[in-house]
C-alpha cells in the first residue's frame, strides 16, 4: 500500500459510495457466522465426552445403567474414587510424578545450557554441528527407534526401573527445547550481554544471571510442553517396564479398564483422577505464561 492510505487515494471512485451506509446491515454481513457456529459446535464436540466423564465418575455403578447418561447423578457418590485409590492409584501417581519431575528438571537445565551455548557461540564449528544434530533430531520419531532404545536399556541393566523411562524421556525432550529456548535467547538484546562482559562476568555467570531470568516465559512453555508429553507417555513405560510396581498412570489406566470391566463409573473416575493434575498444571502455567509475557522486559 502507499504510505498515505487514509487520504483516500482511490480517487477514481465516487466518494459517496464509501460513506458508511446501513451500519446495522453492514455489521450483520461482517459476522463470521460459519466460523461462529462451527466454533460452538466444536465446543459441544470437545465438551460432551469430558462432561460425560466427570458426571459418570460420580454415579453409582447400579445407577449408571438406569439413568440418562447425560444427566448429572441424582445420588452423588465418591465410591468410585475410593475404589481407584484402593487399587494402588497413589503408587502409579507417584511413579508418574517421579518420572515427569526426574526427566523435566535435567532436560530443561541441559537444554537451556545447550541453547545458550549455541546462540552465544554462533561462530564455533563444533557448536554448529551440535545444533544441526538437534535439528535433525526433531525429525526422529520415538516409535522408530524404540527397539534399539530397549536394547540399550537392557544392556544398562535398567529394564523395569523408572530410570529406564526417565533417560530416553530426557533425550527426546532436548531437540525441541533447545530450538524454542534458543529462539528466545537470540532475542535478548546484544548490549545486555556486552555490558555483563564489561562488568567482568563469566559466560557461566552471564547465563544464570542474565539469560536465565530473561528466558523465563520460554522456560515455562518448554516445561509445560514436555511435562504433558512425559506425564502422558505410553510407549516408553509399555516397552521398558513390565512389573505393576513400575507402572505409570497411562499404563495403569489401561489395566484399570480391564480390571473394572463393566464398572464404567470406576473407569471414568480413574481417567478423571489422572487428568486433574495436568489440567491444574496448565491452569497455573497459563497464568505464569501470561504474567511472564506481559512483564514487559524486552519491549
Amino acid at each position, binding site marked *: 500500500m502507499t504510505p498515505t492510505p487514509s487520504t483516500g487515494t482511490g480517487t477514481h471512485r465516487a466518494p459517496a459510495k464509501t460513506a458508511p451506509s446501513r451500519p446495522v446491515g453492514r455489521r450483520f*454481513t*461482517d459476522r*463470521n457466522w460459519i*466460523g461462529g457456529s*462451527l466454533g460452538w459446535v*466444536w*465446543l459441544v*464436540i*470437545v465438551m460432551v*465426552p469430558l462432561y*460425560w466423564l466427570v458426571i459418570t465418575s460420580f454415579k453409582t455403578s447400579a445407577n*449408571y445403567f438406569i439413568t440418562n447418561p*447425560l444427566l448429572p447423578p441424582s445420588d452423588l457418590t465418591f465410591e468410585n474414587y475410593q475404589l481407584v485409590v484402593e487399587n494402588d492409584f497413589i503408587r502409579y501417581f507417584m511413579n508418574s510424578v517421579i518420572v515427569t519431575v526426574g526427566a523435566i528438571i535435567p532436560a530443561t537445565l541441559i537444554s537451556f*545450557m*545447550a541453547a545458550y551455548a549455541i546462540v*552465544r*557461540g554462533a561462530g*564455533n564449528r563444533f*557448536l554448529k554441528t551440535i545444533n544441526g*544434530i538437534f535439528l535433525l*533430531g526433531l*525429525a*526422529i*520419531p*520415538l*516409535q522408530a*527407534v524404540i*527397539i*534399539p532404545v*530397549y*536394547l*540399550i536399556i537392557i544392556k544398562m541393566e535398567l529394564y523395569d526401573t523408572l530410570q529406564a523411562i526417565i*533417560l*530416553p524421556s*530426557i*533425550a*527426546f525432550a532436548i*531437540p525441541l527445547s533447545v530450538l524454542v529456548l534458543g529462539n528466545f535467547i537470540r532475542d535478548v538484546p546484544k*548490549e545486555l550481554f*556486552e*555490558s555483563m*562482559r564489561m562488568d567482568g562476568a*563469566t*559466560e557461566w555467570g552471564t547465563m544464570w544471571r542474565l539469560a536465565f531470568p530473561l528466558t523465563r516465559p520460554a522456560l515455562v512453555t518448554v516445561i509445560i510442553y514436555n511435562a*504433558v508429553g512425559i506425564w*502422558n507417555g*505410553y510407549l516408553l513405560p509399555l*516397552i521398558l517396564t513390565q512389573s505393576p510396581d513400575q507402572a505409570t498412570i*497411562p*499404563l495403569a489406566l*489401561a489395566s484399570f*479398564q480391564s480390571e473394572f470391566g463393566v464398572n*464404567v463409573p470406576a*473407569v*471414568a473416575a480413574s*481417567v478423571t483422577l*489422572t*487428568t486433574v493434575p495436568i*489440567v491444574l498444571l496448565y491452569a497455573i502455567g*497459563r497464568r505464569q505464561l501470561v504474567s511472564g509475557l506481559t512483564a514487559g522486559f524486552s519491549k
Partner: protein
Amino acid sequence: MTSLAPPVVRGQEPTRSSGGRSGSVLVWMALPAFVMFVFFGIIPLFGVVALSFATWNGISPEIKLTGLDSWTAALTNPNLPNALWVTFLIMALSWLVQTPLSILIGTFMARQSRYRGFLAVLYFIPLLLSSAAIAITYKSLLDPNFGLGAGLGVEALNQNWLGEASLAIATLIFVVSWQFIPFHSLIYQGAVRQIPASMYEAAQIDGAGRMRQFFSITLPQLKYTIITSSTLMVVGSLTFFDLIWVLTAGGPGDSTRALAVQMYQLGFQASLMGPASAIAVILVLVGLGLSLLLRRIGGRADQSQLEGA
C-alpha cells in the same frame, strides 16, 4: 530498541565471543545435552538400521547378523500390504478432516474477544489428555451395551462403533481429530493473527465480503502454515500407536492395524526384532520422504518451519 547505542562501546574488546577461552566454556555447556541425545537418539537411529539386518528375539543376549533375512521376512509378510493401506488411509482421512476444520476454527479464534478467549481455553483441554485416557474414554462412551447410545436409547448412536471394520476406522479418525484439531487450530490462530490488518481494510474498501476475504486473503496468506501443519499431521499420523493400541489394538481383525502397530506386534509380541526394525526403518524413510515432498510443494522451506510455531 536501543540498537543505536552499541557502536560507542565496541572495539574495546574483541567482539567475537566464540573465540578463545569462552568458546571452550560454551562447548562444555552444550556437551551434556549433546551426549544425552546422541546416546538415546542418534545411536538408536543407526542401531535400528543395523538391527534390520540382524536376527534377535528381544530376550536372549544373542544378536546375529543375518543379512537381508529380516528385510525379506518383513517385505513378504502377508500383513504388510494391509498395514501400508491402513496407514495411508489414516493419514489421508485424518488430514482431510482436520485441515479444513482447523483452519476454520483457527480463523474464528484469531479474532480477539473475551468469549473466544474462553473457548480457546476449553478447546485446549484434549491436548492435555493422554492418548490412553482418550482411548479409554471413547471406548466406554461408544460401547454398544454400556455407552452413550445404549443409555440414551438413540438408535443412530447405538452402533458397534469399534467392532465393525469400516466403522472402526471412521471412529479412529474422529478420535484423532478430537485429539489434534485443537493443536492445529492454535497454529492457524497464530498465523491468522500475523496477517496484516491493512490487507483486510483494503479488501473491505474494495467491497469484498467476508467469504471473499477468507478465500482471497486468509487462505493464500496461510499457505506456509498449511504446509507446516500438514507436515506435522502427515508425519505424526505415521506414529499413532498408543491411541490405536488402547482403542482397538489394531482390530477388529486387522482393519486398524497400521505400520506402527504391526511393528510393535512383530517385535514385542512375536519376538521378531529384525523384521520389526525393518518396519521401523520404513517408517523413518516414509516420514522423511513425505516431509521433503511437502517442503518442495511449499517452496520456501525455512520460513514455513518457523511460521506460527
